[in-house]
């Protein structure tokens, strides 16, 4: 079971119209080499799920600027002018989800929950088309799970079994994306031998990882 592969060998996994989750927060913790791959392949009509659309020249933002995205589900798009432009021109659909709700939806997808109830968004536009549920006389929104065909994550240190360790704030959406995606590819800043990451320090278990790509290759 050798999970460490060349990035080019992954091409057969991708096709137009897929739903792909990509880790990162304004590009911090985003697997740029894997974004490069999607741009090289120029696959289209993607549904992209991530915290934000980053910047025009960074992370998820590059896919949007390159017109590869049909729909994006994110919490923030203000740092990428192309997202707003494509949305206003009707060329791309944008679904905005509050950040805490978005990560819970991804978690629900990965953790097998049918949904979660949150007060966030009550009395706002976020309510639209959503079921409201009363619990102990308090009103909540039912927020539904999100899943993806492929999850692209970035790991600071990854062992050959796929166990991932994230440094600093690169963790953000990555661990939940690894749970919510049918196939998971991790871009590793460094690859170490299995056992080099202490079992307590593993942040995403290798059992969730299908492929490892070296970020510096």
């Amino acid at each position, binding site marked *: 079971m050798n999970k460490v592969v060349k990035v080019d060998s992954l091409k057969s996994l991708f096709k137009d119209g897929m739903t792909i989750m990509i880790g990162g*927060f*304004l*590009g*911090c*913790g985003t697997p740029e080499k894997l974004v490069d791959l999607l741009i090289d392949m120029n696959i289209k009509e993607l549904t992209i799920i991530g*915290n*934000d659309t980053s910047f025009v020249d960074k992370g998820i933002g590059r896919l949007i600027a390159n017109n590869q995205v049909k729909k994006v589900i*994110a*919490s*923030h*798009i*203000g*740092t990428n002018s192309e997202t*707003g432009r494509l*949305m206003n021109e009707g060329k791309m659909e*944008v679904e*905005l989800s*509050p*950040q*805490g*709700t978005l*990560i*819970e939806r991804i*978690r629900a997808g990965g953790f097998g929950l049918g949904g979660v109830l*949150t*007060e*966030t*968004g*009550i*009395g*706002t*536009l*976020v309510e639209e088309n959503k079921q409201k549920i009363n619990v102990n006389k308090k009103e909540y929104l039912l927020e539904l799970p999100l899943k993806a065909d492929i999850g692209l994550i970035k790991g*600071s240190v990854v062992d050959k079994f796929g166990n991932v360790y*994230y*440094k*600093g*704030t*690169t*963790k*953000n*959406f*990555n*661990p*939940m994306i690894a749970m919510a995606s049918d196939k998971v590819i991790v871009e590793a800043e460094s690859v170490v031998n299995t056992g080099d990451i202490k079992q307590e320090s593993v*942040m995403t278990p290798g059992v969730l990882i299908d492929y490892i790509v070296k970020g510096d290759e």
Partner: protein
Amino acid sequence: MIDSKKAKEIIAKRVAKELSDGQLVNLGIGLPTKVVNYIPDDINITFQSENGMVGMGKLVRDEGVDEDITNAGGQFVSILNEGAFFDSSMSFGLIRGGHVDVTVLGALQVDEKGNLANWIIPGKLVPGMGGAMDLVVGAKKVVVAMIHTAKGKPKILKECKLPFTAKGVVDLIVTEYGVMEVTKEGLVLKEINKDITVEEIQEVTDAKLMISKNLKYMD
């Protein structure tokens, strides 16, 4: 008229007084960030950044930069010894679960019922809500810190015209002109900038201000 830079200083300095020892605090991007500069040395505040840490330190430049440590605005920061990193679900668990004592954030509009609007100007600007909706619903105390008006037009209204970030969540509004508390009866002016009169502040405020019996000067 107070210039923008001075106004922001006044606001940040005043907001700092709302924080007390041992609290966990989230400061929004922009003006609220400046609050850090006015916290007394003998008070220990832990700052949370919604992208995944508590114990956030200062902004870092040049050789001090660790590209793996950023704040929610994407700037490079440091983390203190007592800090911790975590994923976004834990971060918003702290926020939504009521573990954050105070959140300080800006507003496009805020009204006398404590409604807040700060994430969208339909047809014009759609940055998205980011973590703001969760923060104002979850934090124990919500402080709006903002310049009193936008190009001379009131931002403190009887009712927000822009789409809400959340309903009835704001506890306190701090501007360069004064400090207003949201109560069931409406907005109570508790402190006022000594360079302005009660009439003058009412003039640039759409909502009717009730004047506290103990009205003080801002400091």
